[in-house]
């Protein structure tokens, strides 16, 4: 295919940034045709109208509208349809203004000033102001069950300065606080007397919620007043919860839905060959892991950990478990599209000889690996493959198949070695703090590395880009060589859509265009 096509594909997949794409295009003199071919489908601008019907493999009758309870893909999409946040992650993975039109960090990144956009209306008519921001944040602070509580624990105080400015004082410098403030839980909602009605379904987003039947269907109508230029093209949006993958695929092929997420990877290529259906994928932050408890024998010996890290054939696992829809991991949780990713850190490969060497130093290895498909689809198969790879190095692994129900209560962070998945985070600091900082509640390897924790705090407040890059390089290397986690692969976000859907360049952070497909896509 031509250079232009190749570059376009790379851009869509997030392998190059928009800046690189543009410079490459101007180098080959193709900038004149850029506006026309930049979009995935249409030559003219986005067309308005139509009802988008989405079939999602998520959703449960226990879902609710309170942002503190959003925890599956269905509620994530409802969230982005009706709410806006302080900022949004753009197609290049950088945080861009949304309800906050600008921000600045001072005082060593300990004081953050956010300037709010003016004239934004919620769907109940109220105009957004600083009171709403404060109330929306406080819903997740203090006495709350919200998962965002841990994120906002670093906020010592927040106050408004006039109706269009909010100032945060942090306990320590954090150069990435703009990302944190835009976490998906912290949806901005209208407040009354300093409090939000968490489950009222009202926000400033592209759509207004008309009907919500948890675990079944959510129906939205277009917000006629949407403030964001160039977003929100559909008139109506219908989300259906179709858990059974076969039923979901049938719904797409018989035209009951226009988009479906998570096609069965085994049959995805065949689905893509059907006329009128396109398989799309992006490489985000999603990765699958096998965390070892570094506080439990034999995994407290780094020789054991290094042996096991060398004893897995990553390419084969990507081929057989992800059917090629992914990339190999390098035993740390940082995705290639995240800033300061250590692309020059040597990729670890399957090496039975090295594995034997470390195993001998450890005095032989005979361990159990607990897995269930609740961790990630194909986890049990991946564990079984791992066992075979390791056998070639004289390492014995017994695969213990655990029940799906109760996996997160009884197996994860309880058994010595298990399987897990991470949706990943847009910044290294966030990912490392969530799962790798000593003493963290989701540090599933129970790891405590002094140098790593020191670097974590210094890098967080460091505003010089080169210094930060060096610190994060060292941290990724430490996790790779001394950490307790085997990260064999990053899984692509895969979904299938009718060819009537058109889109521009796509965000890489979450599936389906950063979960903002409802406001970014249109019917061709």
């Amino acid at each position, binding site marked *: 295919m031509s250079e232009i096509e190749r570059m376009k594909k790379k851009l869509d997949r997030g392998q190059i940034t928009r800046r690189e794409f543009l410079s490459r295009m101007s180098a080959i003199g193709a900038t004149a045709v850029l506006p026309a071919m930049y979009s995935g489908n249409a030559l003219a601008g986005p067309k308005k109208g139509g009802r988008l019907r989405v079939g999602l493999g998520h959703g*449960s*009758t*226990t*879902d*609710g*509208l*309170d942002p503190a*309870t959003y*925890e599956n893909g269905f509620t994530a999409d409802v969230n982005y349809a009706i709410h806006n946040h302080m900022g949004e992650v753009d197609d290049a993975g950088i945080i861009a203004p949304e309800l906050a039109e600008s921000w600045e960090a001072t005082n060593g990144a300990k004081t953050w000033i956010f300037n709010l956009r003016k004239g934004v209306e919620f769907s109940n008519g109220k105009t957004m102001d600083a009171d709403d921001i404060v109330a929306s944040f406080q819903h997740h602070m203090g*006495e*709350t*069950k*919200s*998962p965002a*509580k*841990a994120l906002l624990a670093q906020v010592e105080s927040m106050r408004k300065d006039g109706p269009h400015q909010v100032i945060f004082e942090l306990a320590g410098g954090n150069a990435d606080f703009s990302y944190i403030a835009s976490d998906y839980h912290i949806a901005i909602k209208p407040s009354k007397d300093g409090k939000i009605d968490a*489950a009222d379904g009202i926000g400033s987003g592209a759509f207004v919620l008309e*009907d919500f*039947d*948890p*675990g*079944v*269907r959510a*129906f939205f109508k277009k917000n006629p007043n949407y403030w964001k230029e160039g977003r929100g093209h559909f008139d109506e949006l219908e989300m*259906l*919860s*179709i*858990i*059974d993958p*076969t*039923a979901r695929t*049938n*719904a797409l*092929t*018989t035209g*009951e839905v226009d988009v479906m997420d998570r096609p069965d990877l085994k049959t995805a290529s065949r689905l893509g060959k059907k006329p009128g259906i396109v398989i799309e994928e992006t490489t985000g932050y999603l990765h699958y892991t096998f965390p070892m408890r570094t506080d439990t024998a034999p995994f407290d010996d780094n020789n054991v950990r290094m042996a096991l890290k060398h004893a897995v054939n990553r390419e084969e696992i990507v081929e057989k478990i992800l059917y090629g829809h992914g990339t190999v991991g390098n035993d740390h949780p940082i995705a290639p599209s995240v800033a300061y990713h250590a692309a020059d850190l040597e990729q670890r490969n399957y090496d039975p000889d090295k594995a034997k060497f470390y195993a001998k130093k450890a005095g032989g290895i005979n361990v159990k690996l607990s897995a269930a498909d609740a961790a990630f689809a194909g986890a049990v198969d991946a564990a079984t493959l791992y066992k075979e790879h390791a056998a070639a190095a004289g390492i014995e692994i017994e695969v213990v198949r655990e029940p799906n*129900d*109760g996996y*997160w*209560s*009884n197996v*994860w962070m309880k058994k010595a070695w298990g399987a897990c998945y991470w949706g990943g985070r847009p910044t290294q600091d966030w990912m490392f703090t969530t799962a790798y900082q000593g003493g963290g*509640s*989701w540090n599933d390897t129970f790891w405590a590395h002094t140098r790593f924790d020191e670097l974590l705090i210094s890098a967080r407040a460091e505003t010089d880009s080169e210094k930060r890059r060096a610190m994060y390089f060292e941290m990724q290397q430490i996790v790779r060589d001394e950490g307790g986690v085997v990260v064999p692969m990053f899984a692509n976000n895969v979904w299938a859509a009718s060819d009537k859907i058109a889109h521009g360049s796509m965000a890489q952070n979450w599936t389906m265009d950063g979960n903002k497909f409802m406001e970014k896509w249109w019917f061709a």
Partner: protein
Amino acid sequence: MSSLLKVVAQRIALGLLTLFVVSIFIALVVELLPGDITQAILGQSATPETVAAFRAELGIDRPAPERYFEWLKGMLTGDMGKSLANKREISELVGRRLSNTLFLGGFAAAIAVPLSLILGVLAALYRNSLFDRSVNSFTLTSISFPEFFVAYILILFLSVKAGWFPGISNISKDLPLGDRLFRSLLPAATLTLVVVAHMMRMTRAAIINLLSSPYIEMAQLKGVRPIRVILHHALPNAWGPVVNVIALNLAYLVVGVVVVEVVFVYPGLGQLLVDSVSKRDVPVVQACSMIFAGVYILLNLFADIVSIVTNPRLLHPR
């Protein structure tokens, strides 16, 4: 007639006792499951602080018997309480799903029951003929397949290949009746195929059993036409066992259809129950179990009444 009323009253009293026992049993069993709703909902986000805060908010840090009695008190006054997961009124949550389930069950029953009775009578009439044998083998085959298999076959041929019907039953609350019936046709057809065999064969067996009685022989000697012998003389006495089987299958059509619901994405009670059990949403589980138990009890009561009414000896005991 008064004896009939006495029987009905007795059965209702026993039914209430059964419901009470079922409620205790369900509460016990859900209590024994590992984990609780806070961990199930928060999932990977469950830290000890958020779990404790959530527990306190829901009031489930109180001991089990206390929670059970509070629930029982609520039930007796007609208040099913609120779902622990999303604070919605359970009566509203269950109400919508229940009406969907009853609609589908009713639709399937409206097709299956007359079909089974007609086929059963015809099979008895033409017993041991080719017709009889082929009807028997076809229905036995369809009941032997797992219902999701039957469902997938119907979807494959009637929806994906022929395009006559939609692949999923996307029904919402303000759909006109005609649309609803059209979208529920495939699941109803699946359920019909699954329940016809039992009812048809029982009808056939009950009638054939009676055909060896002396009074039937008398009717045949009188020269009565075979179809009238069956419909007018044999069938009225066969109602007892037949109605029992019909009641059992009707109960199945309400409580046992969760697999069909999942395959067709039909928003019924089965999926609600499965979701609530996996999230340990105890009030919803109890409400659904009470409904299912109540359905069984009512249908059994109906079967008993019909058995008595169609049997003069039982209707007018000496």
